[in-house]
Every structure is written in C-alpha cells, then in structure tokens.
C-alpha cells in the first residue's frame, strides 16, 4: 500500500511520464481512499493549466 508521501511523488512523476501498470494501479487505489491526495492531484493539474496560461494572462 502506498502512503501519501509516495503517492504525491507518483502523481508528480505521472505529470512527466506514463507510470507503469503496477504503479498506476496502486495510485488509483490510494486515490480512491484518500481525499487529501485526490485534492493534491487536482491541484497539480491546475498548476499545469495555470503555467500554460501564464503568458496569456492579460489577454
């Protein structure tokens, strides 16, 4: 079972490469039971969206 610290590292790594099946599955299970990590995951996606948008922020 993953702990939250490991899960955050995997989520972050998942932003940069495709995780292996085993890691993907362990992460999915962890996210099912951990709302803190679910929020963390959404926040990582949001950071990326914000960074992509940053140059165009003033229209």
């Amino acid at each position: 079972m993953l702990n939250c610290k490991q899960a955050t590292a995997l989520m972050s790594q998942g932003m940069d490469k495709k995780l292996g099946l085993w890691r993907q599955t362990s992460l999915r299970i962890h996210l099912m039971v951990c709302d803190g990590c679910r929020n963390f995951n959404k926040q990582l996606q949001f950071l990326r969206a914000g960074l992509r948008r940053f140059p165009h922020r003033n229209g």
Partner: protein
Amino acid sequence: MENELISFRSDMLKFAWLQLRDESSAEDAVQETMAAVLIGKQSFGNRAQLKTWVFAILKNKIVDIIRERARFSSTGAALEEIPENAYDDLFDERDHWNADTRPSAWGDPESSFSSQQFWKIFEICLTRLPENTARVFMMREMLDLDTEEICKELAISPTNCWVVLHRARMALRLCLDDRWFNAGDRDAEL
C-alpha cells in the same frame, strides 16, 4: 503590429526573466523575438493569435539561451536548492498527511484565471522558486519540453530531474494554497 508588440513587452520580459533570472538575457531574448516577429511580417487576424505566435518565438529564444548556458555551467545545483526534507513536516510518522496539512479542495480554481490579483500572486509564487529549480520546472511546464530533453540540456540524471520537478510543484502548490486559495486576507499578500 509595432504597437501590439510593445504592449506585450512587459509580459514577455517577465516570462523570460522567470526562466533566465537575468535581466540582460531576458532583454536579449525579448529583443530578438521582436526582431524575428517584425522580419516575419506575417499577418494576424487578431491580437490573441499574434500573442500566441510571439510567445512561441520567445520560448524558442529562451531554450536557445538555456542551451548555450548549459554548455558552460553545471546546473546540478537545482537538486540542492530545496532540501530533501523540506516537506517532511506535511506528513506524519507513517507518511500520511497531517490533519492540518492535508490538501483541501480549491473549489473551482479555474475561475481564478480571470482575476488580475490571482496572476500577481501566481507570479510572486513563481518568483519565489529558487533559480535553478525554477529553470527546470519552467522548461517542463512553460516551454513544454519533455524530461528527457531537459535532462540532456542541463546534464542532470532523469531521477534528479523528477525530484526537482516534484519539489517545485510542492513549493508552488503550498504557496498558492497559502497566499490565494486558503488566504484569509488576499490583499495583505500584495
């Protein structure tokens, strides 16, 4: 076209500075971009399209400068800027979130994109990232290079590259959480 280019100048300089952390290099990148745009003489239907094109050129100029620099210096420093234990306090002895650091929902964060104040905070948080960490992170997220390219350009191992990216994300997330999404008084931060 000239007027529009000038109106983008300050955003371009900020964008370049965040990645190069050096005013004269940022200025070079911006001026070269402006020259390339004027020489290109392409016509654009609207301002947004022009801005997208200008920033695409600027990104290439920034990558060129980073490549040039990487030849002369080692950027292994990124790994030491945020220490390994920097975020240990967020987790308990079993490495699960502590009650008071467990990430809370940010609601509908995309609605912040229309707030000028949000972007100011966002920029403050990016500026607070240590220099080399910021460079690796921006290459990934703003220049959209993949980690393989970044490792190669900066001559760091893929593992170290991911560690740096992860720490940068932790730092940026905490900063936005603290100064915007869970800030008691957002104005106090500006």
